């Protein structure tokens, strides 16, 4: 019993919060102004608790597995959710169904926790669905916007399609090996064609969730339609969680197929970086822009994943942490501006620096970090991914990846150019940012500046293996 409490600590805390929210909702309710701080505090508590009592262990006969490394991954996600809750304070206060919003978001988070900790394909599938369906509901949260519902519909349909193929893959795997346990699968893999086929089917589900080209088409529409809080959740938390479990699945479960997935990752990483960048280049809407740029970032994550050793795991986790700070900061600024002015186009950002220097610097810092320009942490993140990916000394691929960094820099510069250089008769008026938003932005900025320079963070991740 004690072990159950300890090992499932993160999941249980989330569950407690979910139930708390349910009680409040079912009870006499509470005004947003009172409820939001409570939620934010409980998320903070959740984050803090996540750092203690982390041990390694199995539950339910290998169905659930956790370790300090996995706990760290969950902490990253916790941090992200906490920051999202802070950054979108303005929007959340106005939303009609605050409790439901967090109910859904935390349910998805719970799903992701189970996903990361899953020890067999069944739990994996269930958790994946739990992590997806609430998000589809969340995507529909802008009730008065048609594009919001459209995005949600596209998401749920595509994801059902992807789930179907995933299940097909799982059943094939079970058919070949007679097991669904992560621990047994690598031992029973027979290297047959059918097994490879099953793996590719299974992988397509990851590709779909991670928006890997050519399985990415839903991304832009959903990102654009959803409220920014949801978009940032999708592009950071959801991507991070899937990337984490992808590491486990590839490195542990499908280790015998390493040659297959190495090549697969190379092809898809190249395609993802290239197509993501090319699409991002000509986006006008900031959300769509970040959606495509996050596709390109996923391509980079795949470069790190292709490593196949602990270095790969560490570099991906480290990158997700940095990506979380950077992307959330960018989305935070967009959220503030969109909430106050309803402007989301890059052209609207012209001359922003004149009126909103603080927001401009945060956004610029975030974008430079996403582009991987030092001294921001994004530089270190990208560099370690490349270091991981370059372990096989495939120079051609490395050059391709770095050239993509240049293309991405080009479009990130487009935004900074609008902010700092372009002239505008009517720039966005000065916006007063509320304290929680400011706090979250400063946390993100600090993360962007410091995580890279504090090398011990990477070392710490390395020690968690």
């Amino acid at each position: 019993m004690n072990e159950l409490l300890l090992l499932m600590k993160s999941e249980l805390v989330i569950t407690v919060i979910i139930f708390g929210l349910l009680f409040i909702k079912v009870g006499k309710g509470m005004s947003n102004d009172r409820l939001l701080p409570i939620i934010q505090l409980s998320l903070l508590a959740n984050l803090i608790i996540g750092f203690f009592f982390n041990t390694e262990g199995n539950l339910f006969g290998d169905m659930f597995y956790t370790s300090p490394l996995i706990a760290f991954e969950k902490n990253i996600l916790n941090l992200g959710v906490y920051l999202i809750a802070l950054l979108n304070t303005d929007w959340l206060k106005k939303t009609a169904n605050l409790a439901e919003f967090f109910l859904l978001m935390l349910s998805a988070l719970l799903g992701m926790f189970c996903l990361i900790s899953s020890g067999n394909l069944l739990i994996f599938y269930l958790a994946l669905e739990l992590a997806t369906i609430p998000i589809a509901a969340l995507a529909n949260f802008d009730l008065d916007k048609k594009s919001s519902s459209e995005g949600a519909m596209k998401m749920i349909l595509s994801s059902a399609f992807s789930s179907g193929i995933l299940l097909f893959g799982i059943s094939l795997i079970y058919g070949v090996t007679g097991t669904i346990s992560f621990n047994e699968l690598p031992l029973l893999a027979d290297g047959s064609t059918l097994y490879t086929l099953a793996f590719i089917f299974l992988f397509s589900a990851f590709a779909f969730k991670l928006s890997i080209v050519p399985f990415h088409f839903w991304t832009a529409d959903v990102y654009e339609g959803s409220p920014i809080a949801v978009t940032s959740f999708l592009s950071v938390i959801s991507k991070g969680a899937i990337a984490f479990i992808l590491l486990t699945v590839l490195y542990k479960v499908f280790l015998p197929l390493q040659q297959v997935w190495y090549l697969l990752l190379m092809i898809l990483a190249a395609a993802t970086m290239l197509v993501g960048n090319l699409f991002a280049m000509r986006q006008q809407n900031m959300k769509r822009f970040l959606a495509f740029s996050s596709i390109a970032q996923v391509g980079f994550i795949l470069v790190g994943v292709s490593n196949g050793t602990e270095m790969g795991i560490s570099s991906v986790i480290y990158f997700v942490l940095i990506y979380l700070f950077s992307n959330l900061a960018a989305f935070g600024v967009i959220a503030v501006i969109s909430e106050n002015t309803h402007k989301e186009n890059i052209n609207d950002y012209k001359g922003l620096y004149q009126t909103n220097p603080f927001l401009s610097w945060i956004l610029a810092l975030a974008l430079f970090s996403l582009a991987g320009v030092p001294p921001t942490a994004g530089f270190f993140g990208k560099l370690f991914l490349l270091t991981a990916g370059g372990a096989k000394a495939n120079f051609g691929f490395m050059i391709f990846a770095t050239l993509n960094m240049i293309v991405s820099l080009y479009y990130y510069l487009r935004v900074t150019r609008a902010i700092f250089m372009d002239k505008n008769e009517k720039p966005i008026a000065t916006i007063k940012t509320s304290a929680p938003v400011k706090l979250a932005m400063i946390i993100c900025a600090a993360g962007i500046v410091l995580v890279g320079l504090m090398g011990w963070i990477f070392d710490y991740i390395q020690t968690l293996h």
Partner: protein
Amino acid sequence: MNVLLFLGLPLLTALAVLLSRSKQQVRVIALIGSLLQIVLALLLLFAFRAERAGNNTAQFLFEQQYPLIQSLNIHFHFGVDGISVSMILLTALVVVAGVLVSWNVEKMTKEFYFLLLLLALGAYGFFISLNLFILFFFLEISVIPKYLLIGIWGSGKKEYCANKLVLMLMFGSALILVGMLGLYFIGGHEFDLVNLSQIIIEPARQTILFPLLFVGFGVFTALFPLHTWVPDGHSSAPTAGSMFLAGISMKLGGYGCLRVAIYLLPEGAKQYADIIILLSSIAILYGAFVTMMQRDLKYINAYSSISHVGFSLLAMGMLTQTAITGALMQMISHGLMTALFFAVIGMIYDRTHTRMVDEMGGLMKVMPFITTVLFIVGLCSLGLPGLSGFVAEMTVFVGSWQNDDLFHRIATIAAAMSIVVTAVYILRAVTRTAMGPITNSDFAELKDAHWNEKWAAIILLAGIISIGIAPGWLNDLLAPGAEIISNRIAGK
């Protein structure tokens, strides 16, 4: 002496600038900070000479090491040899001159100086780093400041030029990055310059890695044909920005070519030396001829930079000790000279509001100080003895001539011929600007240099002349470093 001061001082100054209240405060703090940098650089010079005089023969002095990421074997590793000391001196001089000439920047003064100091920080960090990762980090740190400096405070097609400059430099960085990671894996998970220099890398690997690193750093130093960011970037940057770009940034590339590409991959250097010589000879002549056709003073200086930097690349390709010393001298001389040239062009532009040679004339009569400096710089550029340009180019030619086969001889002669073309364009530009009657009646009322401009010019001139008259001290600094590199090439 603690070389970390070179990181701490600019950083502190930059932070102080951020916290200051008025524009005047910003300027004064930046000036004090940059003057302290000169003092520090001179102290370093003396400390270094004292150590060497005391027979401390270690390759790098004042070494310090701190772990950054132990699991990847990445350390902060700092230290200096004669080459870095002289580069640091160059940086300090250009920084203070840049701060001085920007005294009248009114638009976002605080941000301007902050970015300027960030650039300086990057340059210092680059020159004292002995770890490839850290070196690369500092190389890249200047990307954002460069972009914003050109894009916000620049002139002309500034956005386009800023974009082009940053993207092309990033292209160079991308190649460096790949080459660097290649070294890391081949050298057994090692980024440390000193440790890597102990490792013998098989020639086949060097064949792949050398072009990546050399071309990568080469982009920074305007290696033909990847030089097109130079004219556009320099001409649209604000004065101090151009000074930094030409005076310091391009030197980062040259230093990298030498310290990283050639030093760590001597076999690769030998394999590609002829191509380097070919490209740089082309750059020298081609740059000179293209300069001849320019009408805009900034373009003249920018294109002539391509030609001048070509000398140092040419000398690197020659691989002899004298040539490498010459390459380094040329880098320093060119750094001082172009920085001053851009400063003077900025001063003229501030007054006449044109940079077109044809629209000027007779400026000597209204601004004797500025035009005199322009003359001196021009003469330095065309290699007049007594100024640094002559010393550097002479060393390059002597070093190049030491290779006695036909190919090297032809390349050397071709490069030497460019001096004639240089004389044509420099003299034409300078005389048209300064001499003759005052063509535009608006110019008659113009004022000569202000105190800040005078000091900026004097500080850089001091460098140019002290190298020109007494090159011995510089040679003492550079030659031992060059010897280590050339010995490694020769396999000693």
